[in-house]
């Protein structure tokens, strides 16, 4: 498996598409730093200034919620990286005839798919760690407030969470690359699912959940993107006290102070486990399909 992992990684790092993705990473870093610079002073004073670098929204623009790091990552960037890294994993090998060549070497069939999946996750992790560090580093210079130990732990948890979310998208796009022979169909299917989970579901939720906030929230929870978005804002913004809806009567009893790390983790735990399980299901399905597929069918 190491041989395949090595080859996949060197392929990724020398490819043009990876270069574009890294450029995109820097674009997002720039955007995040810019919104932080504009908005961080007007933010409240609940502490955790350093984390605000990642959650501050760009002020005074329509759809402002899209222009912060957390939402941008959950709705756009991670799904795109996942799709780009996985959509041609198996079908390109199949169409270029290299799959049967690899399969006739003394390697287990699962090493091929494990190697590809792992290589995707490594590239994704590198991109995420880079962007978090670039924002942190530049932000540190800009605001002059050092992160506390808890903030560093929260950022670390966020990164782990990101990688699991990315694994879902890599798994999904690899699944399509196993199911569909054509590269174009495979990428279109992945993109269709991405649009559905990012925006389609929002439209549905707005349509059906006009009367009740409860319905609105429930519908959004069917989308891994929104699940991840909610959970990541809870982990990066300790002031978020609940991911559900609360009545104005209950609101009165809420203390406007940040949650402890443990309580934030309790809050995101259901999101975390459901994301982890869909990532695992997605990978398991592709794994089983690939193991059972006849190599003959070229």
């Amino acid at each position: 498996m190491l041989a395949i992992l090595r080859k996949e990684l060197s392929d990724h790092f020398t490819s043009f598409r990876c270069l574009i993705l890294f450029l995109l990473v820097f674009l997002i870093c720039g955007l995040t730093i810019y919104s932080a610079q504009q908005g961080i002073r007007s933010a409240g004073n609940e502490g955790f200034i350093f984390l605000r670098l990642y959650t501050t929204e760009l002020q005074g623009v329509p759809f402002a919620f899209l222009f912060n790091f957390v939402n941008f990552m959950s709705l756009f960037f991670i799904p795109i990286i996942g799709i780009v890294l996985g959509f041609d994993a198996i079908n390109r090998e199949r169409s270029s005839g290299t799959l049967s060549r690899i399969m006739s070497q003394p390697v287990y069939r699962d090493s091929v798919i494990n190697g590809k999946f792992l290589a995707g996750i490594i590239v994704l992790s590198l991109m995420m760690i880079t962007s978090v560090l670039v924002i942190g580093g530049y932000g540190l210079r800009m605001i002059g407030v050092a992160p506390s130990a808890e903030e560093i732990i929260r950022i670390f948890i966020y990164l782990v969470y990101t990688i699991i979310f990315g694994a879902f998208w890599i798994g999904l796009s690899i699944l399509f690359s196993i199911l569909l022979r054509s590269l174009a169909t495979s990428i279109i299917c992945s993109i269709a699912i991405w649009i559905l989970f990012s925006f389609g579901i929002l439209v549905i939720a707005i349509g059906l959940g006009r009367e009740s906030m409860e319905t609105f929230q429930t519908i959004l929870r069917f989308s891994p993107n929104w699940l991840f978005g909610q959970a990541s804002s809870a982990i990066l913004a300790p002031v978020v006290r609940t991911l559900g809806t609360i009545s104005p009567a209950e609101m009165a009893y809420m203390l406007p102070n940040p949650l402890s790390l443990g309580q934030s983790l309790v809050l995101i735990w259901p999101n975390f486990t459901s994301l982890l399980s869909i990532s695992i299901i997605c990978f398991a399905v592709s794994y089983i399909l690939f193991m059972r597929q006849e190599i003959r069918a070229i």
Partner: protein
Amino acid sequence: MNEKLAIETHDLTKTYDGTTVVDHLSFHVRENEVFGLLGPNGAGKTTTILMLLGLSEPASGSIHVYGYNPTREPLKVKRIVGYLPEEVGFYENLTTKENLEFIADLNGISPADTSRRIDEVLEMVGLTKERDMLTGKFSRGMRQRLGIADVLIKEPKLIILDEPTSGLDPRGINHLLDIIADLPGMGTTVLLSSHQLYQVQRVCHNVAILSKGKLVIEGSIDKLGREALAGGRYIIEVETAEPSTELVDILKKIKGVSGVEADGNILRVSTDSDLRSEIARTVVDSNVSLVQMKVHEFSLDEIYMKYFKEE
């Protein structure tokens, strides 16, 4: 030739969605020979090959490749067997050397050995100059030769080539066949599948002809010709200076001759064994001048045409 068996199959059967693709196929390949698996497209050649490699599971029957069962121990088989698929593909963004290095890496060959073996195999297939060229720019002939190099890099005991000559020009075919013909001398057994009979005839020691998944006939090419076309008889062509009907009658009386056919100056004598000396004596004794005499060699085409005409 060594009598040890490289491949042995017994009643091998494979069905896809209810259709039998390979039907009770039994054949064997000896070590250090070039064995041809022949048949029209869709005869089950590729399926048989995939089963030999453990890439496809037989419905019933047994296979042994150097004593290993490919279904149970695919990795052991793949370690000693090199396979060149019909549509061989390379990573087009990598150079010749990098493509070969990847395969060596998958086979767990050490980096020091890898560079030595790459030099050797590229030398053998005549691609030394293209060592650092991207394989995306290769012609079909070069790709096939690189395919052979790719298979040889792991120093296999058995090489399986699926339609290695398809799509090549005559020069490319000759070059490839020359490489294949040299392999048994290096201690490598070759199994090659083809529907191009002439080519196989040149390099194969033994052949098996498949049709609709069934083994039609197996054996060496001259034996096949006799069995298939002349019902196990020899056909001896006798050319005389002038045709003579008396000679036909005389020849028919020789013990072992079952028939004589006249075609101008040439007489075709069917016999049970090689009776050339008796025939020569008889012809000379009857005062007819003998121009030449030879045992008719059957080409694979004739064998092939005969079998597929019957269907």
